[in-house]
């Protein structure tokens, strides 16, 4: 489904290289977890896959469903089924969640030749999705992320995912900021949304999330590279040992951080 090949990325116009040859393959139906210390490039990877204009791919490729998506705009990638739950969801004052989601849903539906929903139909549809993440309907009429608490923003991201039903969801630290009950509810929601035809990438610092959502593969990013991959037991090992023992792998190819 997604194949990232030797991906090198710089901050546009500044020549600072952040990703230094990332390789990663995600198949349909799989759940992957990406872990790694602060500043290792996890969010950058997610944003580059989603097409953030701030970053420039200098080498390598991103293949999605068999085709390179490097030339696609972020909205085209979204139409193709890519979803990014942001580590820092953005506030859009004056635009209600409901308005944004209906525009999003209908734009994506139209791009795929599916039927658009009128406001009443959409209202029925969206209410089911609220239940999935146990979100209060009041949030539909509130401005997108504006004044939301940290945890509410994260839950709102998963609510949006539920509405848009992406084929590949990149969830960037969705667990950070959620209280214990909220974590369980959101994780349940993600599990319910996951099925054999879609894939999920969880970026996280905490092993605990992986007790709720069990990954098929765990990767460790350090210094802009995936330095180690393994099964779910790798997360437990990291919990125990930290990242120190892996640091040396980041420079193995003679390329220092």
């Amino acid at each position, binding site marked *: 489904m997604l194949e990232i090949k030797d991906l090198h990325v710089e901050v546009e116009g500044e020549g600072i290289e952040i990703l230094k040859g990332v390789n990663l393959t995600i198949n349909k139906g799989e759940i992957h977890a990406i872990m790694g210390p602060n500043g290792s490039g996890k969010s950058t990877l997610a*944003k580059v896959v*989603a*097409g*953030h*204009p*701030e970053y420039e791919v200098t080498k390598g490729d991103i293949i999605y469903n068999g085709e390179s998506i490097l030339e696609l*705009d*972020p*909205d085209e*990638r*979204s*139409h193709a089924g890519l*979803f*990014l739950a*942001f580590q820092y*969801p*953005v*506030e*859009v*004052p*004056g*635009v*209600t969640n*409901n*308005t*944004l*989601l*209906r*525009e*999003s*849903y209908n*734009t*994506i539906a139209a*791009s795929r030749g599916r039927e658009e929903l009128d*406001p*009443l139909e*959409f*209202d029925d549809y969206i209410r089911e999705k609220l239940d999935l993440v146990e979100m209060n309907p009041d949030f*539909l*009429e509130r*401005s997108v992320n504006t004044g939301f608490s940290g945890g509410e923003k994260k839950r709102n991201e998963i609510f*949006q995912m539920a509405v*848009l039903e992406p084929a590949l969801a990149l969830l960037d630290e969705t667990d950070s900021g959620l209280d214990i009950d909220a974590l369980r509810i959101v994780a349940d929601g993600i599990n319910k949304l996951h099925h054999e035809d879609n894939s999920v990438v969880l970026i996280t610092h905490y092993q605990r999330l992986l007790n709720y959502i069990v990954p098929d593969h765990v990767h460790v990013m350090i210094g802009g590279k995936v330095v180690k991959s393994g099964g779910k037991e790798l997360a437990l090992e990291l919990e125990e040992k930290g990242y120190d023992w892996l640091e040396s792998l980041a420079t193995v190819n003679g390329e220092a951080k």
Partner: protein
Amino acid sequence: MSETKALETMIGEEYKYGFTTDVEYEDFPKGINEDVVRLISEKKDEPEWMTEFRLKAYRRWVEMEEPSWFNATYTKPKFDKLQYYSAPKNKPKLNSLDEVDPNIRETYEKLGIPLEEQKMLAGVAVDAVFDSVSIFTTFKEKLAEAGVIFCSISEAIQEHPELVKKYMGSVVPANDNFYAALNSAVFSDGSFCYVPKDTICPMELSTYFRINNMNSGQFERTLIIAEENSHVSYLEGCTAPMYDENQLHAAVVELVAMDNAEIKYSTIQNWYSGDEDGKGGIFNFVTKRGACRGDNSKISWTQLETGSAVTLKYPSVILQGDNSVGEFYSVAVTNKRQQADTGTKMIHLGKNTKSTIISKGISAGKSDNSYRGEVKISKKADNARNYSQCDSMLIGQTCGAHTFPYIESANPTGKIEHEATTSRVGEDQIFYLQQRGLSEDDAISLIVNGFCKEVLKELPMEFAVEANKLLGIKLEGSVG
């Protein structure tokens, strides 16, 4: 950056109203002096008191200095080169629409304002002002049935002199400011509206102003009077052709609301704003003021300012009556090299008077957008309250936004609250919305729409559609 490009297609979209209409104009000398003022009055067959009013204003104007305290720079109009009166030739006393010059009729059709009553949006009466002259007023009879007078100001001077004499200049005195004085001397036409006691005006009233003639200044005069317990909603739309030369538009609008009366005045101003380099465009120097004379009266200004090269405009309310209410809702969008210095004045004189100011400035390109507002609470205005909120949004790195609030309170029971924010449409905001499937244009539209929401919802329905089109904004859904 692509963000700026998207905005250009949105706000800076080719000006659709830039065409010119071929009409023959009456000859009229250029420049200004007492004879020219007299000639205007004569052309309009005005009574002596009106001619005097003009002359007095002219004499004051000659002694006044052109102001320069605002945040805008431009080449001053050459007052001796301007033409102060411009009327299409063959302007008969119009009794039916068939007599309107077909070219002019077509102009209004092109602007989306059909003058045929049956074609018009139900519930909107239109007064069409072409260059300086009122061309045609629709739905007159229907309004007359309700007792509402809606006609051109020239006609009002002939038919209702006692009303005009009583109210004209009573809110904006002839010597109020440089441009108001000039207007008082040479105003050519405009709309007049009188809503009698205990009357709810049965439809929206509107005037469409069109500047066509390249060398003429446009000086309209609008006067709206709402007697006790009456209610009227009035809309004003403005467009102009594209010329390389600047054109001057200096209007005066006066509103009077008596006890329990309410006037809602909405404007969509889309004069030509000049090109990329700031060449051409309208100078929009307008004096708009309302007097809440009666107790419990209310005056509400709503404006969407998107056009003009330079705008200086401060629709104000004098809150004389006890418990009277003044409101100002404004969206001002500037792009390219436009300069807007706009805001309001709320003068609290009566007790328990209340005013609300919501101003949204959006600047893009190399434009400059300033909010200037004054709230004054006089000694006798016990328990006066004001709430002001002035938000600026910047798109791109080359524009400017400024806020100049002036507050003066002479009564300790007064409450004034002022909030101001400045934000930038960020790459991250656009990226977030694009990630959710929206195109870059739609993302910007949504952000801008969200930003202006509180103001746009104040526009009457008939205008809301146009407003949204103008901003390139999709209407938000009607459910919930």
